[in-house]
Every structure is written in structure tokens, then in C-alpha cells.
């Protein structure tokens, strides 16, 4: 976006982290496997986090209930894919991919629709009051989680990958799970679409301007509330898509998954700088890589390592790697 004064230092963090991990992991092929897994996980997290960070940057709304949309997307995917077992059971790749597409679309639609209701009834009455926002979106999260339990039951549901996406490709000695490649591709497509919308369209221009200075955009005559509702809904839909991807990545879904992923998302958007899409991408990749490296090296401290990462980044840049909003 700002091509002239591109701040490259945060960009260098991702390859730096990967390089530091190389001697620690030891074997090159294991390292490659872990790196691809980390990038795939990072891309999925990015899909979920991008909506949340825009919602915060644009309207100063911190949504602790974002996790509901993740779980919702994943549960919708279990229903959709469960109903298309001849397509997912087929060994032909194109049939599997065709089966994934409706799961993703329906997941996004449902999450987006619930997002409309969430914005209207949970978020709108408490604009501008941070304390109440945190409390109320937390309440919305509880309600959403319980409603998921009512509809799909409280137990864990398996979400198997389609036939042809199981297993892994061999690249030299390194085995790379096929689904992870799909995840990276979908993540890149989402990022490209987002980046294009934000930097090349009028709506994107307004969103970016709104993140930087809301009052100015309003005084120019644009209804930023309406724009915000749109961003909130798209953010929810993206969380739904991320939920589908995450559910397939874990190969099972639980009602609590939203709350678990939420914690990773928070770490990501804090690292990235609230309101920054580029920062969210870097944060997500860092968190994904870190989780996979430490999961391999010292599994017991995996979650702590991400907190340590966040602490380190914040000591370096207290507002996150790309601070955007002036709040």
C-alpha cells in the first residue's frame, strides 16, 4: 500500500524465525515439513484474524465473541460435507475440491448471517464503551457456544478430510500434507482479494481512511456505520471460512474450538498492530511457525512460546509491528 516507504523489518521476521529454527530442528526435511505446516496454520489464522483486526481498527470495537463464527463455520462444514459423502469419498481430486467449495460458501454465508444479528443485538448498543463491549461480546460468545451445543450436541464431531486430500506429498525427504498446500493456496487467495479490495477499490479506500481517522471520513459525508456493518459481516464470514479450514486442519470440531482459536487470534492481532491487515498476516505466520517449531521441539511450552513471541514483539514495537489506528 505504501510502496515508497515500505517498512521491511517486520517482513524479515518470518524468514528470520524460520532460519533460527533450522539448526534447532536439525534435519532439513523435518524443518521443511514443519515450515509448511506452520505456514498453512498461519494462513488459516490469518483468514480468521483479518476480519477481527479490521473491525477493531475501523470502529474501535473489540469483539471477544469472534470465536463463535469460527465454531459456527466448522459445524456448518460438518453438516454440508456429511451430506455430500459420495463427493468427499471419491478419490478424484476435482470432485473433492468441488465438495469443499459449497462447504466453504455455506459456512461463510451462515457465519455472515449470524454476524448481522450479532452486530445488531450485541455490538451496536454498546458502541464506544470498551468495558461493556468486552463484557457483552463475551456474553454473546457464551450464548453462541451454548446454541451450537443445542443444535449439534456438546460432543466432539469428526470432520474427515475428503479422500484425495488425505496423506502427503513427498518432496525429497520431507513429507508435506496435501491439505496444507490447499490451506496455503486458499489463504493466499483470501489475502490477495483483501489486499486488492483494500488498495484498489473505493470501498477499500474508505475502510483504510476510516481506520486511520474515522471522524474525518464521516465529515466528508460517508456513512461509516454502514461501512462498518459491512466490514463486520465480511469479518464474520471470513471467520466462518477460517473455521471450515481450521476444522478440516484439526479433523474434528468441538463447541469450545472458537474460544481456543480466539486466544491465538488475539496474540496475532496484538503482534500485527490492531487494525493492520499486513500486520495480521505477519503475526499469523509468526504464530503458526512458532507453534509448529515449539510443538516439535518442546511440546509442553507451545502456548507459552506464542506469548513470549508477543512479549518480544511488543518490547520492540509496543503498538504492534504495523501500528495503524491512532487510538
Amino acid at each position, binding site marked *: 500500500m505504501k510502496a515508497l516507504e515500505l517498512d521491511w523489518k517486520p517482513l524479515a521476521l518470518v524468514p528470520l524465525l524460520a532460519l533460527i529454527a533450522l539448526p534447532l530442528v536439525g534435519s532439513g526435511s523435518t524443518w521443511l515439513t514443519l515450515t509448511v505446516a506452520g505456514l498453512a496454520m498461519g494462513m488459516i489464522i490469518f483468514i480468521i484474524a483479518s476480519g477481527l483486526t479490521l473491525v477493531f481498527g475501523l470502529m474501535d470495537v473489540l469483539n471477544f465473541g469472534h470465536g463463535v463464527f469460527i465454531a459456527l463455520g466448522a459445524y456448518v462444514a460438518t453438516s454440508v460435507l456429511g451430506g455430500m459423502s459420495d463427493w468427499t469419498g471419491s478419490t478424484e481430486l476435482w470432485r473433492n475440491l468441488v465438495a469443499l467449495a459449497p462447504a466453504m460458501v455455506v459456512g461463510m454465508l451462515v457465519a455472515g448471517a449470524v454476524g448481522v444479528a450479532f452486530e445488531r443485538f450485541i455490538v451496536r448498543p454498546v458502541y464506544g464503551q470498551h468495558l461493556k463491549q468486552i463484557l457483552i461480546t463475551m456474553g454473546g460468545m457464551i450464548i453462541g457456544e451454548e446454541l451450537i451445543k443445542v443444535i449439534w450436541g456438546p460432543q466432539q464431531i469428526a470432520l474427515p478430510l475428503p479422500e484425495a486430500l488425505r496423506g502427503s506429498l513427498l518432496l525429497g525427504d520431507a513429507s508435506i500434507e496435501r491439505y496444507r498446500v490447499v490451506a496455503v493456496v486458499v489463504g493466499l487467495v483470501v489475502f490477495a482479494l483483501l489486499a486488492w479490495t483494500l488498495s484498489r477499490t473505493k470501498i477499500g479506500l474508505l475502510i483504510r481512511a476510516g481506520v486511520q481517522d474515522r471522524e474525518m471520513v464521516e465529515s466528508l459525508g460517508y456513512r461509516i456505520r454502514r461501512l462498518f456493518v459491512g466490514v463486520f459481516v465480511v469479518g464474520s464470514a471470513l471467520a466462518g471460512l477460517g473455521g471450515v479450514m481450521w476444522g478440516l486442519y484439526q479433523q474434528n470440531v468441538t463447541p469450545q474450538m472458537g474460544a481456543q482459536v480466539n486466544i491465538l487470534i488475539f496474540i496475532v492481532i*496484538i503482534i500485527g498492530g490492531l487494525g493492520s491487515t499486513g500486520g495480521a498476516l505477519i503475526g499469523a505466520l509468526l504464530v503458526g511457525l512458532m507453534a509448529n517449531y515449539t510443538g516439535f521441539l518442546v511440546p509442553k511450552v507451545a502456548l507459552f512460546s506464542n506469548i513470549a513471541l508477543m512479549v518480544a514483539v*511488543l518490547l520492540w514495537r509496543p503498538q504492534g509491528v504495523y501500528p495503524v489506528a491512532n487510538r
Partner: protein
Amino acid sequence: MLNRLLSNDFPRSRVLAVILVAVLLGLAFAPFIFPGVKALSVAAKVLVFIVLVASFDLLLGYTGIVSFAHTMFFGIGAYGMAMASTRLGPTWTALGVGLGASLVLSLVLSLAVGLFSLRVRAIFFAMITLAVASAFQTFASQMSDFTGGEDGLSFKLPELLMPSHEFLDAPFLGVSVDGRLLTYYLLFVTAVVLVLALLRIVNSPFGRVLQAIRENEFRAEAIGYRVVVYRTTSSVLSALFATLAGAMLALWLRYNGPDTSLSFEIMIDVLLIVVIGGMGTMYGAAIGAVLFLVAQSYLQELLRLASEATTAIPVVSALLSPDRWLLWLGVLFVLSVYYFPTGVVGRLRASATLDRGGLHGDKA
């Protein structure tokens, strides 16, 4: 005398005063008024939660900080007692060592979290504490050599506090005077002392500064108060009180595991109680804890009845299943944040001020 005890912070509403006295008397004579093991357990849990919620109120209601790591300190207190008692045997020294060690650990942790994350942005604090608390919970259940993992730890107390220790041969007023009763009164006295201490803290000049920060951080800083120092002190104090509440819980249950003291559901319960009782009032903690814990038992009963009555209608029946009681609490929570932001205590005080014509009453 009363003035000194309550730190000049009277209930300021006749109804509220009556309710508070009723709660105090009810808890003081609970073993005699409400016979039965379960009723006494509920009463003891109320005592623990009053301290826990009051300490959270210091943070949320008085300083305006949202922390999700409060159960972490609660858990540290409970684990301190449990781990020391399993390692060192059921002695008073073990309890002392456990309590001391957990207080020190809470102090260090809360200082670290506070100094670090209160320095950056207020909104980060909520998110960072959420992450730290969840990491700590995972950590506690993984370190099974020390913490007993998911199973937790059962332990024995010193002989004096065990139910098998009888002080009198015959029951007194129909209640057997044993170690269990002594433990209950130990908790009762501790809870009263701790709540009065918290009242003292929030009504001291220090507490006034906290409220000033809550109302307008920038102005407080401009007047010359170091906001970071006050906020950190407040979060450390509240962590220490939460640790003591955790120790009380472990003392009563003679067991501790991740689900009993660290789980996120307890955090939600605490939030719910603070909001229902009334943020920034201290007395709200007592009323909220009683209301909530009684509702927790009765709501599930009520839901079971409703669910059985509606078995013919599939969705409604599933919605009313007793396992879904958290759903209704969530709805209650959202509604009370909207329509009831000052909680029970705030409402009572507001109506008391109205009754007095709003002339002599303080600002409620």
C-alpha cells in the same frame, strides 16, 4: 465502631442494609439454619466466591481494568495449599508454606503481567490476560507430576480440621461439632476480615485515585498520579486476595484440580456475579455471590422441570435442558449489562436516593 469497620462506606439504602445483614447472619449461622452437607457446601462456596468476586471488583469495578487471569491467581492459591499438603503431609506448616509460596508466586506473576501489559494499551490487557490464563491452565494440567494433571490432587488437612475430629460427644443444637464445622468458621472469619480489608482499601485515598483513573485516566495522570503504578498496585492487590480465596477453596474441598479452580467457566461466573451484584460497590460481591450460587443450583432444577414438561416440542426441550443452563445465564448476563449496568446494589442505592428526594443522599 461500625464506622471504622465499614470504612465509612455504608450500604446507603435501607433495603440493601437489611439484605446485607440477612446475608451475614445467614452465613454466620448457616450450619444451624440450613442443615445438611450440601447446604453447608453451598454456604462455604458462597464465602469463597464473595472474597474472589470482591477482589475482582477491586480491579473491574474500581480501577476499570478487565482481566481474564483472575482465576489463574485463584488457582495458584488452591494449588499452593494442595501441593504443599500432599508433599509435606497434613500439617499446619504445610498449609503455611503453601499459602506463603502461592502468595509470592501470585505477587511476582501479577507484577510481571501488570507492569508489562498495563504499560502498552489498556485494551491489550484483557487479551493478554486471556492468553496467559489459558496457557497457565494448559501448563497446570500438563505438569501432572506436581499438580496431579487433569485428576487434580486430594489431600488431608491437619487433624483439627478433619471431619473425623469431634470436639463434643453430643451434637450441639442438632449439629455435630467437628473439624468440618471449625473449617467453616475459619472460612467465615477469613471472608469477613478480607472483605472488610478490601472495603478499607477502596475507601482509602489510594482507592479514590483508582476511581479517578477509572473515570478519566488522562486527568488522573495530569493531576500528578502515576497511573501505571496505581493500576499495577491494584492488580497485584487483587491477585493476592484472589490467591487467598483459592486457598480457602482448597481448605474446604480438600481437593484441587484444573476444573475446580482454573477453568474459564469460573472466570465467567465471576464476571457474571460482579455485573449482577453491581460493579464498583464491594457489597455487590456478597449479594451477587449469594444470588448466583443459589440460582446455579435452583436454575438447573427449574430447567429440568421445564425440559420434562416440554419433551413433546423438540427444540424447546433441548433449549431448556439442564445442561444448557449456561445459555440462560449468558442471556441474563447480556441483559443485565444492557439494562442493569449498576447491578442490584446500584439499583437499590439509586432508588434510596430518589426516596430521600435526592437532596441528602450521596451520588449513587
